[in-house]
């Protein structure tokens, strides 16, 4: 394993930004447990700052109760924290009111919720659903379900290997279109889509826009009102927060019109034997005991992001990503996917190394303490449309630094040598 000292020295020589870069890591206990870890897999799941871990422990130690609006103090406290969490998320993403925020277990459940409720109740036979080919499976398979149950048609908007929509693809959004779904930032190519444009285009044809912000929240400033998004989803665990908690943002009027999805405790008003009246939005969509410690952890994650400053996070990530694209593009045996050098991109770089299967590369790098992700990244239709079997992905966040990109590049040389290439 490459010692992290070596890595540091390298990067120091090269850019003298290491010290500043490194500051992010001290908040993350995982790097105390694994001092040599180079974690380039934030896009799969983020590491958690101490503040998040501690907030959840503290909740369970001091405040844990059932948030069923019970009358005793712990229950009241759990309810209070849960409600504050909702308000905080609403403020964090610029929702016009807390009721527009529904807690789910992850982005995937949030997308399914939209599909099962808004989708199945609004989309009719002959309608069209238009999905960006860059979408994650969780933003594709639910729409296949809606299309097949309603008799609607599912259409895809294709992109170039750089992630730009091919000419004319947006024209697939027509007056037949009822719903348009796309990622803000592609987890597979790193491209940042022009989502304001897509939302406006959808609205021009009377369709609603579903924004998958799983790779955007925590990386970019989010303002659902300014975007005029109809629905927007994300997961806590990709933004320094815990697993088991996700968010569905929906415009109040949409949520109001939607039937319930999961049913049971806490989402009802009156249950008779044969029928039920449901609670108001957003409780209507939150059945059963909710993940309060997840909300508490998510709040701490938002605090962390606000404390770091979204601009600072985003600038640092951009710097690392740009540097990674530059270094990787210099290697004759590497092909970089997604936006070209100098173009904006999300905090990740996907690439392929000639002669080495991505999974082999991931294993060899892992052996040197470098965690990347290899495979289809839950975007098989995109991969197929671009003719890519699998790719490697390095993704970045506040706790990374450019020295780690150097270590990655060194790791690629090493892997090439192992695979018998003279000039690694």
């Amino acid at each position, binding site marked *: 394993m490459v010692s992290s000292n070596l890595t540091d020295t390298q990067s120091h020589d090269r850019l003298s930004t290491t010290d500043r870069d490194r500051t992010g890591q001290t908040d993350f206990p995982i790097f105390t447990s694994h001092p040599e870890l180079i974690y380039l897999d934030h896009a799969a799941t983020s590491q958690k700052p101490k503040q998040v871990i501690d907030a959840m422990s503290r909740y369970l130690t001091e405040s844990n109760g059932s948030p069923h609006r019970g009358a005793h103090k712990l229950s009241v406290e759990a309810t209070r924290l849960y409600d504050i969490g909702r308000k905080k998320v609403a403020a964090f993403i610029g929702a016009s009111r807390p009721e527009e925020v529904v807690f789910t277990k992850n982005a995937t459940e949030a997308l399914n919720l939209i599909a099962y409720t808004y989708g199945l109740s609004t989309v009719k036979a002959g309608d069209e659903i238009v999905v960006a080919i860059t979408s994650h499976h969780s933003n594709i398979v639910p729409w296949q379900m809606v299309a097949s149950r309603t008799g609607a048609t599912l259409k895809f908007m294709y992109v170039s290997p750089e992630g730009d929509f091919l000419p004319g693809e947006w024209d697939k959004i027509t007056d037949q279109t009822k719903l348009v779904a796309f990622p803000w930032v592609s987890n597979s190519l790193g491209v940042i889509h022009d989502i304001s444009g897509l939302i406006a285009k959808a609205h021009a044809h009377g369709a609603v826009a579903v924004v998958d912000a799983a790779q955007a929240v925590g990386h970019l400033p989010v303002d659902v009102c300014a975007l005029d998004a109809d629905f927007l989803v994300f997961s806590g665990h990709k933004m320094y927060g815990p697993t088991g908690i996700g968010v569905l943002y929906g415009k109040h009027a949409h949520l109001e019109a939607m039937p319930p999805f999961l049913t049971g405790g806490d989402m009802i008003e009156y249950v008779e034997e044969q029928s039920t009246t449901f609670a108001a939005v957003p409780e209507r969509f939150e059945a059963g005991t909710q993940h309060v410690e997840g909300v508490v952890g998510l709040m701490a994650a938002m605090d962390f992001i606000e404390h770091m400053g979204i601009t600072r996070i985003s600038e640092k990530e951009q710097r690392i990503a740009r540097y990674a694209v530059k270094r990787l593009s210099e290697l004759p045996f590497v092909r970089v996917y997604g936006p070209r050098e100098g173009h904006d991109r999300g905090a990740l770089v996907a690439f392929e190394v000639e002669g*080495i299967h991505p*999974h*082999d590369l991931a*294993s*060899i790098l*892992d052996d040197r303490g470098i965690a990347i992700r*290899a495979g289809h990244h839950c975007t098989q239709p995109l991969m197929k449309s671009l003719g890519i*079997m*699998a790719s490697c992905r390095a993704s970045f966040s506040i706790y990374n630094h450019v020295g780690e990109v150097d270590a990655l590049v060194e790791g690629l040389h090493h892997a090439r040598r192992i*695979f018998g290439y003279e000039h690694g």
Partner: protein
Amino acid sequence: MSMDSLYTELIMMHNRSGHNKHVLPEATHIERGHNPNCGDDLTLQLWIEEGIVKDAAYVGHGCAISQAAMSIMIDLVKEKPVAEAKVLAHDYLRMIRGEQLTEEQRDALADAIVFESLSKMPARVKCGTLGWHCLEVSLAETAE
């Protein structure tokens, strides 16, 4: 064996040579194995006659581990009786699960022993067993 030397040996021995990667026109058994998670997709072709694996080869694409494991397996079972190949598959899969083999069993696995370390790499187990599972399925259909 370290990851690096596992790869070095594998690459040297098999992936570069590719001597078992081709269409086998005489094949009596064709079994496709795939791993949705990694995208490995290999097809094992066996020519079995009178209870003997007369010849074998594979086609498809996959990572170095899946291809090398397949190729080493083919070298090993070629010209062996079906009954013996079944025992090898059984022992190989036990080895990958981390079970202890006798010296004799280990010797029988010959070069395939390099994959022993997969028992400690759960993420790659499916790669190293893809070919062997194809073999098992094919042989299960075969009278010994």
